[in-house]
């Protein structure tokens, strides 16, 4: 039953509206209003943003225009009398049904992308290129744990680093925890945001595109205490080959992680609590 509905939404909703969407980027220059996007998912989010921007923009212009037009045109005149009407059945039906179609269409447009980004069963975990990182947040900094060159956690080449270092052109899967209050990992250029909730391990993923190598900032988007505003982190994106080198380098410098005598970071997230992806 649900799968039928899902299929219907895919079959009917997306193609028609995506066609309409293709016209959108022609008008919308990226960078105005939104920061530059460095991922495919980010581009898709931006397309949806601009679709809503133009739809609501049209509604805004029409309704505000009518409001101003009526205010000017129907200002009280000497001896004038208002037209007596208490409503119009047909008009009510039209302006109830038309917006509901538009709103439903906007809603349906979001389904596919939302699942792609947020639903764990849609994550590219099977991708052999995928890189997994553990994120631990606490007042007021971010810490990251990497599996090292062997790509598996709980081994001798695991290492921690205070920066998020990830490859471009490959999916990055994050497992996220907080030990004290709610934090929110916000990567504006990747259009990535996810709350980290104490007591839960939350997964997320992103895919920085080839050629996006560079230094970026990590923001905390959830009030987490008096020094919330200082909870700035750094992200370094490297081209895939450079990242492999950097990963080995960092592993050599910071590994092994001594699980027997845990640092603060590991004390709260021991290997026994690792979840298989």
């Amino acid at each position, binding site marked *: 039953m649900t799968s039928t509905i899902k299929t219907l939404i895919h079959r009917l909703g997306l193609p028609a509206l995506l066609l309409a969407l293709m016209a959108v980027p022609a008008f919308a220059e990226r960078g105005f209003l939104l920061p530059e996007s460095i991922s495919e998912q980010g581009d898709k989010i931006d397309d949806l943003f601009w679709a809503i921007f133009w739809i609501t923009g049209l509604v805004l212009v029409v309704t505000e225009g009518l*409001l101003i037009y009526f205010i000017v045109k*129907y200002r009280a005149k000497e001896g004038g009398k208002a037209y007596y009407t*208490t409503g119009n059945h047909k008009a009510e039906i039209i302006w109830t049904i038309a917006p509901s179609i538009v*709103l439903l269409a906007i809603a349906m447009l979001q389904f596919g992308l939302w699942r792609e980004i947020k639903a764990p069963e849609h994550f590219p975990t099977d991708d052999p290129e995928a890189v997994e990182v553990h994120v631990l947040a606490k007042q007021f900094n971010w810490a990251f744990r990497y599996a090292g060159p062997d790509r598996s956690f709980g081994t001798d080449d695991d290492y921690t680093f205070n920066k998020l270092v990830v490859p471009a052109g490959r999916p990055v899967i994050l497992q996220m925890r907080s030990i004290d209050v709610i934090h929110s990992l916000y990567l504006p250029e990747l259009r990535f*945001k996810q709350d980290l909730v104490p007591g839960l391990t939350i997964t997320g993923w992103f895919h920085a595109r080839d050629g996006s190598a560079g230094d970026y900032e990590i923001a905390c*988007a959830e009030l987490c205490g008096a020094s919330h505003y200082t909870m*700035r982190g750094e992200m370094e994106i490297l081209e895939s080959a450079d990242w492999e080198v950097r990963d080995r380098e960092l592993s050599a410098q910071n590994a092994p992680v001594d699980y027997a005598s845990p640092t603060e970071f590991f004390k709260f997230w021991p290997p026994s609590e690792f979840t298989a992806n």
Partner: protein
Amino acid sequence: MTAAAAAEHGHGDHGHHEESFASKYLFSIDHKMIAKQFLFTGIFLFLLGGALAVGVRWQLAWPFTEVPIFGKTFSPENYYAAMTMHASVMIFLVIIPLLVGFFGNWCVPLMIGAGDMVFPRLNMWSYWMFLSGAVFFLVSFFVEGGPSGAGWTGYPPLSEIQPGQGVNMWALGVLFTGFSGVMGAVNYITTILKLRAPGMTFFRMPLVVWSILITSVLTLLATPVLASNLIMLFLDRVAGTSFFVPDGLVAAGQVWSGPDAVGESARAGGGQVLMFQHLFWFYSHPAVYIMVLPAMGIVSDILATFARKPIFGYKPMIYSMSAITGLGFIVWGHHMFQSGMNPYLGLSFMVSTMFIALPSAVKVFNWLGTLWRGQIHFEVPMLFALSFVGMFIIGGLSGIFMAATPVDIHIHDTYFIVAHIHYVVFASTVMAIFGAVYYWYPKMFGRMYNHTLGKLHFWLTLLFLNGTFMLMHYVGTQGHPRRIAVGAWDETVQAGYKYLEDFHWANEVMTYSAICLGFVQIPFFINLFWSMWKGEKAADNPWKANSLEWATPTPPPHGNFAGPVEVYRGPYEFSHPDMKEDYAPQQIEDGTPVVQAQAAH
């Protein structure tokens, strides 16, 4: 009980003896005096909330510099306290009490032809509960640790681990205003159901009365959930329970909960952090509608009166308000799209959220229909009502961006949402409150306000509110998180974000504008108090409106009406072609035709 009987009851109770100052002004059980108590308390707290807002803006434009009047530099704790208390004061102590406590009290009995509320003493207690809540908030400024800095949403575990009494006082303050709201809601619902004058059928009630009725249902059903939530938070803080404390929580260098917990704060753990958010938004989303529905009612009445036209689609207006109420209970999850709740739950909340835009859209179209081919008189209340419609369109449409779950990923918890709420709550609701104060001023105080000052107040407020809130959309989409004390990277304080450096100018412009927005409220206060004594004496029905409050002596005495009232038609019979005058008061039988205007559909 008829209106006449109610009026008699009012007189019999306390009309025949000289009243002491305390019983007339403090422990009054007259709905109009209680309304004024809410008005003046609300206005005083509006000044406080506004001052806190300017403090927040100052910090964002010129981080950690000396704040004028406050006299020193904000500490981060000061900043977060100012931000938290600005929102809490404005929502719980200004907007809701002004809309419901003030307008509900003032309008409902007068508009349905009743002598007073059905439970006058409960009404008095409702005010005193509200004032107690306000006192908790005010006292929290002087307790150890200062007021709560956990945000007006008070999300645990932050609100759990914050030291001092601030969060406790905050929780108690919100609880007491909640009691006040529920008492008021019971009173409004019962009064509207039982005390309508003969002939005042449901579909002859002004939309203000409908909006208060619908708002009261929302308040009655949603507030207890918030209360339970706050009680659990309070118990977690003072009694060591673990409703919202998961296992292994670490704070201030100590493990708080679970088997490894040590120290004074140690507790069992096993609680659910997200539970608080669900319960909180189950109330606080409807609260957004509590903060806008009465404003919609007020604006509908003002638009019809000054366009000299019946409300276009009176019944659709009522149905759309009811739809907002129904849907309002199933959209709370849209505050939690990025919270870590099941993503599929997010999808269903998105669909319900999209659909709650529909009744709002229907209302906008009907307001436009009301203006269409009208005779628009630009009195001060009308200016505010018209700007409500214009601003509400902006605030409504920006909501669609955040309802779209993937787009919300980027703009969630940024200044975009701050812009959205301020367009709905300030640019729309507060403007409607101003409009309503001007509209009912002549009836309330028996004197007319100064028109020039009123217009000055309107135009400057409209200008500076847009100057303040419009740019928030822009910095929001650029990724400026809300609730940060420093926006663009600041070398001196070594904090902030470099990706926001290009937008710092916007923070400065918004702050200048916010300061101006504060100053341009001065004409309003001068007008409010000066006209009370020096204003021109007002006629009984200066706007030639139809609803029953204009049929009372000015200002209305105890018991409200001079004699029995009977209602013959709906409240919006303006400009009927068979009538000589362009209005037909509800209570006048002769001379004007009795038209079942709303029976048309």
